[in-house]
């Protein structure tokens, strides 16, 4: 199921869990609006992580907390401080990339 959502002046398509279905629709404004829904005030540090995640997604590299922790961008501890309670899940949503999933 696909849902159309409006963030600011932009209309984007999301899945039922609120993850963007097309990264090309993403803008920084959309990201900031999603962050507000998640209760996160974005800083430069947050955006650095978001840029890294999008970059990896475009290269089709599967993401994990470890991968982010070893990226040199942010430590796992800080990743948790930036995006508390499920950092990869929340940051992926803000970044407009798919939610990390297992096989079933």
């Amino acid at each position, binding site marked *: *199921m*696909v849902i159309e959502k409006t963030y600011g002046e932009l209309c984007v398509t999301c*899945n*039922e869990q609120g993850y963007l*279905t097309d990264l090309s629709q993403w803008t920084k404004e959309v990201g900031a609006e999603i962050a507000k829904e998640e209760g996160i005030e974005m800083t430069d540090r947050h955006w650095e992580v978001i840029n890294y995640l999008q970059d990896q997604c475009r290269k*089709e*590299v*599967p993401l*994990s*907390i*470890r*991968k982010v922790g*070893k990226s040199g961008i942010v430590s*796992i*501890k800080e*990743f*948790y401080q930036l995006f*508390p*309670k*499920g950092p990869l*899940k929340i940051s992926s949503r803000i970044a407009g990339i*798919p*939610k*990390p*999933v*297992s*096989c*079933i």
Partner: protein
Amino acid sequence: MKELLILGAGTSGTMMVNHLRKALPKKEWNLTIVDQEETHYYQPGFLFLPFDLYKTKDVKKKIEKFIPKGVNLIQEKIDRIDKGNDNVILKNKDILKYDILIIATGTNIAPQEIEGMLGEHWYKSVFDFYTYEGAKNLRNKLRTWEGGKLVVHISEMPIKCPVAPLEFAFLADSYFINKGMRDKVDITFVTPMSGAFTKPKATEALNYLLEQKNIKVIPDFNIERVDGENKKIIDYAEEEIEYDLLVTVPTNMGDEMIERSGFGDELNYVPTDKNTLQSTVKDNIFAIGDATNLPASKAGSVAHFEAEILTENIKRYIEGKELKKEFDGHSNCFIETGHGKALLIDFNYTQEPVKGTFPFPGIGPLSLLKETHMNHMGKLAFKWIYWNMLIKGKHIPFVSAKMDTAGKQIEETIN
């Protein structure tokens, strides 16, 4: 003579050597396979061993039994691959020259990656079941365990056979009911994912199993350390979970030899083209099975489907033809749910598991995403298929390398 070298004689390597010995002329190609072990383990059996459903003899045979005639088997540790000079250096300093290399060194558990996991509590109150040693020690523990808090735990993704921890929890429920002590055991399933199931159709079809079996799920738990003394696991958000018996799937990593060779990702997996199985390291290096970084499940069925396509691509590579971009991430897994029943799932890179029939559309006899006794019989029969057909590279009738959409209830979904 040209040299084709395979590293690893597990499920993938053994299948490849059997396929290629038939496919490549003996007068032109020497085949060599290297593995440090002498035993070939039936790894799906590690799930049954802890519950006394399989005996140790069900899960191990000599490696050499499955290596065809006309192949050199070398039992020695691998030091590293020297890709610049197209050779492999063994621990005993022998150098093996190759024209084509296939990496099939699989994935191992790495409990040392989690603080406090290894140490004096390992195989006393903290166990894995992904190794023969772990599964056997856990069996001995369960035989005398008097109950308490059983925590079944995944450290981080990706792991080999991603559904195995859930199957372990289901079988534990069955096991303790049969022993008349289910009321003495709390079963908790702890995962770094957002749930026990994360795909929409599977969640819809299978969530009842957890309630029915009274298994509590704690999602989004990313372990930082094990406090063995106080029997607790603690995550990066400082959440704590107490256990009496911790059955964990430690971090999974590719072979350290990959790291020593100077390639591989942060988990020592080989960067591999997800459709052709050629590595992105060098044109004459290919990878298969758990050793790759493909976004597919690390499972025997995946390796089996990959083997058919990789065999074709090795032949094409030798003939100078373009490689087939054919691998679609096809995976096919039985999921034991306890009490003599099992589920079956069949999916690929883009198609999530859905309901239907398998392998014959509309007939079965196996049912997809549904608990049946027939599926359980399929899983048990698979042990015979594994030892007698699969690793010997014999084609399994009616099951193709590419996923079949017929027989599946597919709605249009956008992930």
